């Protein structure tokens, strides 16, 4: 009996693998690739899982599901390094050992854990410039993406601390000057840049920054107020191109906001199918401009689609602003439960997808799942649109 059971398992696994491979060919999409890669991971076939995810990301570079899987696989790949870094902290504790662990978490994209590793390091080595710089870089990277005031304020505090510990550290001083400029605190930036130029008078980057800071209108407001202004406008006070580190961060963050060539017919079909399979009352997708891109409603329980779309927009817009002020970050989703059933609103890049369930059966879980599948298959994996050519700019006077 036992032998039969043992033999049956690999047969079932092989059959499932075959079916998943077939699904990848017959109904290609990130969900199919994800299912296959998950299966490989369950069977400890890490190389095959990695291959499937890498191949999937080539075809669907914006798929969040595949990115998460890639991160999981990366963490498995780096398991030995994580073990080594943790052992190093126990056996030979030093600021560098903590910084190395933080760097590993950063490499797999886990910023919270990287910050935790730095915090643990700083608890033991309160005068480590490298750890303060690491915290500042992590916070700045996140600020450039989400514009959360808290990240900017903490980044500044860490950079200022690092400069106070070693005034001659070029990397720290220049980043502090750049970040002061980024939030519009030009007066503070000038002070730092002048100090840098005393020790490195030929530094062209510092000279350029100083020229720019001197041209900028000086503001006397406290740094917190300047940060709040930048956060509200979601734009740095100066052109990020002149700031080396921030330019890198903002460039990295620009990618997800790409315009997409979405197939509206496919989207409408997928939404109607999702509504049918969840017995929902209505579902709607709004494009980044807030217009209805696709909608589906049950005939026996009519719902005003325009009003539903307006409700979804209102939930996202009104709560997003306050969530940012509270340092919770950008709105991702909202789920409301009431005597009517459930109302779900999900933000995917700049699109919105919303659904409302009947009172019974509510099928909230199923609707959530189907909404995310529609978003993945119709929005996140749609090809990016060609960038529009910039309007012709007047040439500066070239002289005779």
């Amino acid at each position, binding site marked *: 009996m036992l032998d039969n059971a043992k033999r049956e398992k690999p047969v079932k696994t092989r059959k499932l693998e075959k079916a998943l491979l077939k699904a990848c060919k017959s109904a290609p999409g990130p969900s199919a690739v994800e299912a296959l890669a998950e299966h490989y991971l369950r069977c400890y076939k890490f190389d095959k899982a990695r291959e499937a995810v890498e191949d999937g990301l080539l075809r669907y570079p914006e798929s969040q599901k595949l990115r998460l899987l890639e991160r999981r696989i990366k963490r498995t790949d780096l398991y030995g390094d994580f073990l080594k870094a943790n052992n190093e902290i126990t056996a030979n504790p030093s600021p560098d050992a903590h910084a190395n662990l933080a760097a590993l978490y950063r490499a797999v994209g886990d910023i919270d854990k990287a910050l935790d590793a730095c915090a643990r390091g700083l608890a033991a080595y309160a005068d480590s410039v490298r750890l303060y710089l690491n915290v500042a870089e992590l916070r700045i990277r996140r600020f450039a993406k989400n514009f959360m005031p808290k990240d900017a304020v903490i980044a500044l505090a860490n950079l200022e601390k690092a400069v106070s510990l070693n005034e001659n550290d070029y990397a720290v001083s220049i980043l502090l000057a750049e970040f002061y400029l980024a939030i519009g605190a030009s007066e503070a930036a000038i002070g730092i840049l002048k100090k840098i130029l005393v020790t490195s008078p030929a530094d062209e980057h510092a000279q350029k920054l100083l020229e720019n800071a001197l041209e900028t209108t000086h503001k006397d407001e406290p740094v917190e107020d300047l940060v709040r202004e930048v956060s509200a406008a979601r734009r740095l006070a100066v052109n990020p191109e002149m700031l080396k580190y921030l330019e890198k961060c903002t460039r990295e963050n620009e990618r997800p906001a790409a315009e997409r060539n979405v197939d509206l017919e496919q989207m409408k079909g997928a939404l109607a199918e999702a509504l049918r399979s969840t017995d929902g009352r209505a579902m709607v997708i709004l494009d980044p401009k807030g217009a209805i891109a696709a909608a589906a409603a049950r005939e026996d329980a009519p719902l005003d689609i325009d009003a539903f779309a307006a409700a979804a927009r209102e939930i996202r817009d009104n709560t997003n602003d306050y969530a940012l002020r*509270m340092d919770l970050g950008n709105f991702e989703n909202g789920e409301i*439960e009431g005597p009517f059933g459930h109302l779900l609103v999900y933000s995917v890049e700049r699109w919105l997808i919303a659904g409302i369930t009947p009172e019974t059966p509510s099928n909230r879980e199923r609707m959530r799942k189907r909404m995310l599948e529609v978003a993945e298959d119709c929005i996140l994996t749609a090809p990016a649109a060609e960038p529009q050519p910039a309007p012709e700019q007047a040439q500066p006077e070239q002289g005779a």
Partner: protein
Amino acid sequence: MRETLNNLNQVVGINGSMLVTRDGMVVASELGKGLEEEAVAALATSAIRTALHALSKVGEEGFSLFVLTAAFGRLVLVDAEIAYLVVVTERTINIDATILEMQSAVRQIRKKARITLKD
């Protein structure tokens, strides 16, 4: 009320909680480090009003639970009759399990409110 909020805050992943009326008046609050009462109350009031207004647009009224998920945290609102229980949580927790704890706190708050009103 504060004791109930304090007990709720012991649950893993909960950073703070408060009771706020529909018009934004804070009845009781027990917030953890880094959470400003004014900011949480403002977000909660905005979320309550938005949810009620949005629901009225689709012909519905009232909600029992509103879970708002943002990039780095969650805000959960549970109707406690006299006010709304507002809970700030980590982004990564299992929200369904935590909601059970919140509902238990709401039952206690309702009970205490009834006793106070009788007195």
